[in-house]
């Protein structure tokens, strides 16, 4: 089938699809008139019952924690998949010279790494108080690690982005989530029951065991993304360096 034919029968269908969407969306309560009840209930109970100021994260890591567990494993599976797909194309190279020469970049880069990691840790820690949480913090930490490449060059990075070290971390992050859930099950409570939920509102400790869940998610995300970045970077750098 040629492109022309495809687009010829696709466009009317797309118009029909658009009409369906518009028809459906006119049935939604008008913008700003959210009717509840789900969100309103959570807004009402999140702080009194769980001492979490951030209702989004009390939903993510406590009330609908099982969704987030699935989400962590989606990331987990995707990283395994990417490693599998990009495996051994050109081989890992240890003697790639790809160092950054400029001292200015080094100094600012080092500061930026520190900053990114600190921001990441802060985002994870205070996820139940302010915007942020395991995922956002994890990405920030991973991007700090990515800066290491810009500052120190590929050799340092490849030592850091080594799967043999990161796989265990990723596994522990993902597995930790499940283990915290199972701990509740073993002690006779429902899976992912929140222990110590009587934390201090507004503090780092406000999440109860959902806080541990949050941390294990952060660890998992950071490790998974570092692996992901390093796989893609390797695709990019090793062949170029070899062709020199």
């Amino acid at each position, binding site marked *: 089938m040629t492109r022309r034919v495809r687009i010829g029968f696709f466009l009317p269908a797309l118009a029909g*699809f658009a009409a369906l969407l518009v028809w459906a969306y006119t*049935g939604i309560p008008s913008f700003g008139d959210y009717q509840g*009840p789900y969100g309103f209930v959570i807004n009402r109970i999140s702080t009194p019952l769980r001492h979490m100021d951030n209702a989004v994260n009390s939903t993510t890591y406590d009330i609908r924690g099982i969704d987030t567990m699935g989400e962590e494993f989606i990331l987990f599976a995707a990283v395994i998949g990417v490693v599998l797909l990009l495996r051994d194309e050109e081989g890992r190279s240890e003697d790639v010279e790809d160092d950054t020469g400029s001292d200015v970049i080094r100094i600012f880069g080092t500061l930026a790494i520190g900053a990114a990691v600190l921001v990441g840790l802060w985002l994870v820690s205070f996820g139940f108080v302010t915007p942020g949480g395991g995922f956002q913090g994890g990405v920030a930490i991973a991007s700090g690690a990515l800066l290491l490449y810009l500052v120190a060059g590929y050799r340092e990075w490849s030592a850091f982005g080594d799967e043999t070290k990161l796989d265990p971390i990723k596994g522990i992050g993902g597995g930790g989530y499940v283990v915290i859930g199972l701990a509740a099950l073993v002690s006779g409570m429902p899976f992912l029951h929140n222990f110590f939920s009587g934390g201090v509102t507004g503090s780092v400790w406000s999440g109860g065991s959902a806080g541990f869940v949050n941390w294990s998610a952060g660890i998992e995300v950071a490790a998974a993304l570092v692996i992901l970045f390093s796989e893609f970077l390797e695709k990019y750098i090793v062949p170029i360096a070899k062709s020199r």
Partner: protein
Amino acid sequence: MSWALPLPVVIPLIAAAVCTAGDHVLPRRLGDAIGVVGAAGAFAFSLVILLASEKQTQLTWFGGWKPRHHHVAIGVAFAADPLGAGVATLATGLVLASVLYSWSFLRDAARAYDTLMLLFGGAMAGFALTGDIFNMFVWFELMGVAAYALAGFQVAEVGPLQGAINFAVSNTVGAYMILMGIALLYARTGALNLAQIGHALSGHRPDGLVIVALTLLVCGFLIKAAIAPFHLWLADAHAVAPAPVCLLFSGVMVVIGLLGVTRCYWTVFDASLAAQAHDVRAVLVALGIFTALLGAVMAFLQRHLKRLLAYSTISHMGIALVGIALLDEKSLGGASDLLLAHGLLKGSLFLCCGILLVRYDGIDELQLHGKGRSLPVLGIMFGLGALGLTGLPYVGSYLGHAQIDEGATANGIDWVQPLLMIAAGVSSAAIFRAGARVFLGWGPREDPLLSAEPSESPPERTASMPALFAVTAALLVLGLVVSVAPGLGQRVEQAAGRARDRIAYVDRVLRGRELPAPPRPPVAVESTATDSVLYGIGATAIAFGLALVGLFRRRLPEIVRTALRFTLGPPLAALRLAHSGIVGDYVAWITVGTAVVGGVWALLLR
């Protein structure tokens, strides 16, 4: 038993995490063993949950967030009725078989393979057990991501990669449609729990929002279930995936799509659409019949064995969709029985292909011509598997076919049964033809009718043949006895009845009400109507006859062949053209299908 509900999901996930964490530390064998133990544990707990769910729908609220304040569901529930628990058992059981088989089939492949299998299995169990519509989406995506990676396993060839991309893009578009449907339902009801959404919708006439939400959810799930015109990715994904992965794709992943349709219809939309069920039925039955026939014809045109089996899967999904679409207890039970037998038998056929690949370095029907004669046992297994799929009375998938036929009759429909018979016959004819050519050496070595296909490189090492045969034979035997297992048909029908009972489901999930255990159905082989026996014999006759025609076409009189060429040639060429292998075309067809289904429902249901 409710405490065990998360375990079929949690055990494989934690086993996957341990496998990854210990990948560079643990000895090889120990890692493999963790994989097998994880799969076995998930299967064992699924079975226990299935048995418990027959007495009472099992329920657990994650984190202990039970509904409060006027029965508003806050947390996420797993609610296992026998139908969902049954699918979870099938999924985890097939994952176990697949892990065992690949233990000797793909031993050199990275540990990643086992890990992905476990994640895939855990996700399917989660999808089958959950009672929350967004949680369904999460497991659906996890299942998808693991499956895309498994499909693109052989990165050294273009074919597998293209197959994996077509698969990933089509199913991702489907997932977004599902998410849009979920968002629409949330906008209307402010709930994500299935029971609560249904409860909130009940008594209201369907409007645009509900009809489009139905369209988006159904079409999204039908992409996964490979119902035409949403089916195009399936043959590509199967053709390229290793045999034990095909076992999971055909055996249970597509079933998950149909379970999604069933679950959403009976817990959510039935509340609003019960009065217009007739129109919902018309559209879905039409799609099912179209798929059954199209898949069967396409199967007959293939020479790549896994692709052939994949199209035959599409055909059977069409038949099962008819069973689901008839919207009564008998047919839904029939669809379940059919899918159970199909999963086991089609799985064993794919594993046979895996053995062929190991032994003869190829799975092309024409290249393997006559080579199978040195493996008569495999030939017999292949033939029995095909026979079980045909619907010969009291063999394999017969019970499912019969129940669907009887359900159709009870609905006052009598034109569906002959069409389903033809579909089952034609798709089995393709398998018989391929089997006769490979294992008996019948027919010519060349056949211009069949599509050329990319070759597949064999797994890189010697496999333990006895282990491969043992797993294959176990699936085959289990699949063949489905129709004569005493009490199975009745119990499945009871399960189907429970899945359709929305009021009881709402009572159980939102109010925690315990219902009296239903009476145990009699333990006897389910008897079937005479008509069904005749349809079964008819399908078998078509299968054998057409297989012979396919093999010995050249012995037909010249005039018959010319007539066939002129009447069948152009439509077949058009069909081939539509299955272009280009991802843009696939998404275009998905859009067309969704727009047409939605448009027809918009006219009928409003």
